[in-house]
């Protein structure tokens, strides 16, 4: 990891001229180090330390005694643990499916014929991204209320929903949350995919066209494989994000007067364990479960997709 730095210092030690040059420039600290010093405390205190502390809590009890995996087995046996994970897995599955199919599909459709209309569509798809967080959930609570929704015809006659509480019936929630996440996030991904499609050389497309390939064949056989890396990136990242679901079920819990439990998702369960029961060790155990999923996804993206630059 730091071997290039070491070798260059060794080289300077071996060559007096290099050493003299270094001294002449008044270089006492390695170049660049002072610039990252203000950032390091933040990386350590709010990036690394919370993870280590959560790990520490997860493997100990309230008195600090080491308990091994007891907190993990204990939380796993909690009657709310498995349903919460089932909810987020189902939600994440639905969301990933719609995301992959529609984002890639729409990006290919938009890229088929570059035009002014294409950039207008990209803008329209992207716009809801401004309404993230609580705002997007509130908007969709209105959209799902047949009394005021512009889609009340659809709700009433296609989905058979007459009342708001029917919209947010437990069985519907993974789909409802997936739709909200798709509504706010898809546009950003469409822009990313469109950009990736733009990096495909024109000659390649031209050659395929001369060989007699139609737009459909070009899209599926030529363009799709060339943006595979980006699709993988979107999928892994969204999988990790999906498992962390918190705000959507939290707000629906508030809007439904407790009809939807406040431990619907795993992150909510961890939160409740800490806040309602003051059981920080159990909360840490669930948080570590989720942290591991997030970390694995991140390491996979950094080391496998090759999308992120780590060397010069």
């Amino acid at each position, binding site marked *: *990891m*730091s071997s290039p*730095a070491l070798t260059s210092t060794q080289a300077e030690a071996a060559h007096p001229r290099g050493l003299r040059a270094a001294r002449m420039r008044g270089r006492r600290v390695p*170049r660049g180090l002072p*610039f990252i010093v203000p*950032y390091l405390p*933040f*990386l350590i*205190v*709010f*990036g690394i330390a*919370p*993870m280590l502390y*959560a790990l520490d*809590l997860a493997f100990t009890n309230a008195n600090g005694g080491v308990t091994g995996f007891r907190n993990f087995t204990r939380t796993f046996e909690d009657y709310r643990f498995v349903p919460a994970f089932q909810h987020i897995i189902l939600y994440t599955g639905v969301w990933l499916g719609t995301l992959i199919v*529609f984002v890639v599909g*729409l990006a290919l*459709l938009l890229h*088929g014929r570059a035009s002014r209309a294409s950039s207008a*569509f990209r803008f329209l*798809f992207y*716009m*809801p*991204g*401004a*309404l993230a967080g*609580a*705002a997007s959930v509130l*908007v969709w*609570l*209105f959209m799902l*209320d047949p*009394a*005021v*929704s*512009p889609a009340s015809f659809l709700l009433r006659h296609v989905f058979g929903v007459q009342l708001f509480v029917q919209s947010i019936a437990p069985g519907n929630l993974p789909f409802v949350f997936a739709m909200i996440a798709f*509504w706010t996030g898809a546009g950003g991904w469409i822009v990313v995919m469109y*950009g*990736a499609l733009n990096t495909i050389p024109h000659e390649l497309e031209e050659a395929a066209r001369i060989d007699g390939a139609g737009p459909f064949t070009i899209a599926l056989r030529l363009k799709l494989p060339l943006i595979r890396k980006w699709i993988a990136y979107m999928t892994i990242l969204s999988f*990790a994000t999906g498992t*962390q679901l*918190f*705000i959507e079920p*939290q*707000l629906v819990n508030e*809007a439904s*007067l407790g009809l939807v439990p406040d431990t619907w998702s795993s*992150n909510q369960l*961890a*939160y409740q364990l*800490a806040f309602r029961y003051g059981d*920080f060790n159990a909360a840490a155990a669930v*948080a570590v479960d989720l942290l591991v999923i*997030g970390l694995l*996804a*991140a390491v996979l993206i950094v080391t496998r997709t090759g*999308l*992120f630059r*780590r060397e*010069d």
Partner: protein
Amino acid sequence: MRTAARGLRLVILAAFAVFFVIPVLWLILAPTKADGALVTSSPLSFGSFHQVALAWDHLDAFSDHIYRTWIGNSLLYALSATAIVLATAIPAGYGLALGNFPGRRVVLTLTLVVMIMPAAALVLPIFLELNSLHLIGSVLSVILPFSFFPFGVYLAYIYYATAVPRDLLDAARVDGAGEWLTFRRIALPLAKPIIALVFFFSFVADWNNFFLPFAVLADSSQYPIQVGLSDLLSSTPSFNPAQGGGGQQVNIFRPELALATLLAVIPVAIVFLLSQRALVRGMLGGAVKQ
């Protein structure tokens, strides 16, 4: 055949445009109507500006002008955290891109991993950590975690590693400028586009963050607007006819809730519109290795 395919393409795109745009349109129009009119009139009709003013009066009166406090808190948290992010992330990206010190790759890899990891995964660990330090309930317990923004470091790193010629910086050093002067006089002015980009991402991320302030703040007068909205939601009968009496007391009905949501996204919407072009270009032209 070809026109049919073209027509189908337009129909699909238009259908999705409707899906993405209608909820936004509805939100903009809802505060122009009274609660009853929302149910009886056409969902996308315009009411009157008078109703908007009325809805604002109700919203503003809620809990002694607390809505203004929430917006002010959000501005305070997002702007001060973003200021710290700019002051730490731009030099850090520069140091990582052009420096040569032991541990450089470790810092870079850790930054990347934390950046890609979903932010929500760190909220409870941060809460547990702050709790053990008895910092819960302090404004700093929101601002300081917000000030750690690895994506900003990565953006600055990529920019300096790819877009700024090393020769330029070496030339400055040959001319006798020290490390700090080289950064201050050459590297920093060159970073203008990246400063805008980091500002955008950091501000939007902080403004929209719900989970962290929800977990670490106790007093509703400290809430940022995102958490405030959930407070507002739970004190209205909009979705709970059972809570009818409560609504009469606080005068918060659907138009007020819609107006509160709409006003809450305006700062982000403005930043979105302003930086749309730069953003799309920057996000792809160098933010990530092609």
